[in-house]
């Protein structure tokens, strides 16, 4: 097996996991965090080396043939091209910073070895997902990531609701995975191969554009992507996934796992181009999730849940970009989003740890002077989230998406995007003001203990802050070459008009938020506490009631059927022969009454019957 940088990049986390898993307690907290962070650091270096030595065209490294039966020949092969390298950079880069911050965040927690084992396994699975050039290997990474998110969300396993959140996350993403698996089966049946490159070349030959199979295949792959990227129908697990430690939320539910869906669609763009109305569906789902999450974020009290809904909303933007065919823009936003959302989550983590695990905004406040680094992180991250013009990385990527939507004249999606930008502005300002300004809500908030460790606390936040500015946007190498040309290229004019619109939306959002939360705070509170306002607030707080809907439609019938079927009624059918036998027994026992004379009568009766038979049967005697 050639020891190329790419292979090294995903072997290091694997080694890290194995060492941590089999150390079973011998490594102390320091030892395991050193190994945990170190392995991802080495992976980051290997990726850097791979990026530098990348020659531009797609390079396949086949380790070994996984299964070969007849024409079913999936191989453990790594496809290294621009897209994979960008994703690897994000995973290992941002991953490393998050691992570093986790060393500070998790001090004093029990079972750090287990934490880092899971985190390294997660990075390994994510690398496999991104590098897999064979759909089955991609599926391996896909499910591995699901298992690690189960392990990490359920990290504080003592609490029953944490474990339940982990269970819910795994099952909902597993439903998505089943859709993807069905897609795989269909693709293999129709095209006879699972290798991504050959699938993309054979698809146009075998399927006409818009044909039923193309639509079905695209739809199934979309189903898988929705599950993993927490978009509208399969999104209920993301807010509950905040039960895990904050670095986990940062790594999994901001930077990497939730973007797996976007990567999948971007990788299989050929499939989606063959099914235009499924592409439109992708855009529409993106828009819907965008708005739904934005509204929900307005009514959250827990910092992490606000960020979770904000993640869902930003991924909605990426789906919107994919829907209009701007694959490059989607990846660009994916990268910048990874930076600023990781920054926001880590800053939130800093706040939470400083205020002794206090996550409720109403109990926090007045922290901006006491936690300067966290406040700085929130400001820069918030700016990028809101897409503050010219300064933040978010502006460049979100503007690109909106421009592509406009160029592809999908005006409905464009309007949704702009409305989303306004709402993003509002909830970001609400978040920052609620957490850092105003009066401290509890004594935890009155005297927080700010993180002082230079390397594990300040360094990640500062680096991510830098990446969240225009430098991050500048760092992104355009991946245009890899994807079919986006709608934007064909249209010249109108870009500046779009930029004006976008900036207008952002400014309007900030102004409205500032006016609402600074000047008219009491008016806002009493509107939100009475009649229509209160019910609207509650609806948004529970994310439009999807959770309750799924609970009543799916979970409760399932539990009812499990209770009903606990008594194995099909088994009763097999008890039938036993019952029949017992019935006969009861009947025949009565004939044995012990009296000889009745036996004599029965005997004579038998004899007579035989004699009669002989007598009556003609010619019987002859």
């Amino acid at each position: 097996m050639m020891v190329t940088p790419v292979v090294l990049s995903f072997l290091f986390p694997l080694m890290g996991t194995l060492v941590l898993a089999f150390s079973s307690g011998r490594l102390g907290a320091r030892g395991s965090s050193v190994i945990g962070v170190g392995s991802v650091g080495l992976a980051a270096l290997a990726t850097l080396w791979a990026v530098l030595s990348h020659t531009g065209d797609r390079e396949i490294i086949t380790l070994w043939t996984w299964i070969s039966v007849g024409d079913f020949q999936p191989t453990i092969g790594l496809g290294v091209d621009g897209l994979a390298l960008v994703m690897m950079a994000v995973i290992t880069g941002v991953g490393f910073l998050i691992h570093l911050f986790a060393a500070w965040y998790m001090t004093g927690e029990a079972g750090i070895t287990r934490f880092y084992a899971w985190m390294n396994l997660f990075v390994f699975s994510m690398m496999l997902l991104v590098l897999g050039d064979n759909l089955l290997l991609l599926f391996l990474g896909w499910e591995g990531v699901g298992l690690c998110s189960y392990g990490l969300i359920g990290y504080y396993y003592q609490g029953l609701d944490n474990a339940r959140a982990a269970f819910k996350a795994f099952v909902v993403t597993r439903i998505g995975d089943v859709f993807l698996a069905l897609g795989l089966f269909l693709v293999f049946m129709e095209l006879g191969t699972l290798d991504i490159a050959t699938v993309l070349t054979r698809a146009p030959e075998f399927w006409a554009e818009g044909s039923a199979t193309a639509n079905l295949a695209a739809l199934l792959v979309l189903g898988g992507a929705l599950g993993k990227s927490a978009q509208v129908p399969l999104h209920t697990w993301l807010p509950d996934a905040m039960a895990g430690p904050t670095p986990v939320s940062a790594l999994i539910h901001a930077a990497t796992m939730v973007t797996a869906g976007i990567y999948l669609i971007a990788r299989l763009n050929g499939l989606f181009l063959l099914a235009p109305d499924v592409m439109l569906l992708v855009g529409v789902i993106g828009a819907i999730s965008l708005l739904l999450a934005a509204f929900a974020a307005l009514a959250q009290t827990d910092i992490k849940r606000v960020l979770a809904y904000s993640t869902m909303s930003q991924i909605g933007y990426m789906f919107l970009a994919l829907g209009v065919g701007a694959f490059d823009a989607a990846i660009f936003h994916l990268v910048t989003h990874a930076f600023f959302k990781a920054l926001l989550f880590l800053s939130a983590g800093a706040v939470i740890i400083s205020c002794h695990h206090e996550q409720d905004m109403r109990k926090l406040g007045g922290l901006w002077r006491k936690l300067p680094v966290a406040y700085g992180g929130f400001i820069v991250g918030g700016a990028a989230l809101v897409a503050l013009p010219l300064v933040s990385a978010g502006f460049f990527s979100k503007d690109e998406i909106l421009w592509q939507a406009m160029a592809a004249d999908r005006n409905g999606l464009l309007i949704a995007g702009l409305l989303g930008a306004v709402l993003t502005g509002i909830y970001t300002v609400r978040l920052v003001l609620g957490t850092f300004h105003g009066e401290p809500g509890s004594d935890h908030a009155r005297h927080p203990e700010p993180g002082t460790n230079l390397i594990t606390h300040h360094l990640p936040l500062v680096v991510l802050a830098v990446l969240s500015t225009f430098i991050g946007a500048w760092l992104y190498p355009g991946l245009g070459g890899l994807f079919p040309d986006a709608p934007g290229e064909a249209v010249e004019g109108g870009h500046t008009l779009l930029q004006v619109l976008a900036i207008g939306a952002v400014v309007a959002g900030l102004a409205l938020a500032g006016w609402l939360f600074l000047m008219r705070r009491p008016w806002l509170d009493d509107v939100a506490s009475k009649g229509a306002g209160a019910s609207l607030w509650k609806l948004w707080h529970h994310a439009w009631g999807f959770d309750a809907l799924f609970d009543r439609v799916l979970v409760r019938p399932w539990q009812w059927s499990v209770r009903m079927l606990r008594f194995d009624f099909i088994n009763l059918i097999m008890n039938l022969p036993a019952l029949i036998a017992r019935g006969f027994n009861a009947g025949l026992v009565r004939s044995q009454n012990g009296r000889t004379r009745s036996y004599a009568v029965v005997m004579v009766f038998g004899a007579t019957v035989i004699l009669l038979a002989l007598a009556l049967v003609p010619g019987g005697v002859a």
Partner: protein
Amino acid sequence: MNGIPMEHGLILASILFSLGLAGLMLRRSMLFVLMSLEVMLNSAALAFVVGATAWSQPDGQAMFLLVITLAAAEASVGLALMIQLYQRYRSLDLDAASRMRG
């Protein structure tokens, strides 16, 4: 009168047999049961002799002799059992000895 047709003999035997059988089933006392048993055996013997004389074959009568020995053996054992029954249950009622219930 030119001889007795054979059927009559056999009819007599059948009547005697069924009478014995009825007695066997009707009576509760073991003595009567044994006696009706003897009647049945006797009717069988009668049928043999009627057959023998009709076809003038001596075998019938030889068989008759065997039937009688059988009757004798059976009667003796039957009576011995009856004595035991009487000693055990103080009466000859067959239904009393019904411990072999199912």
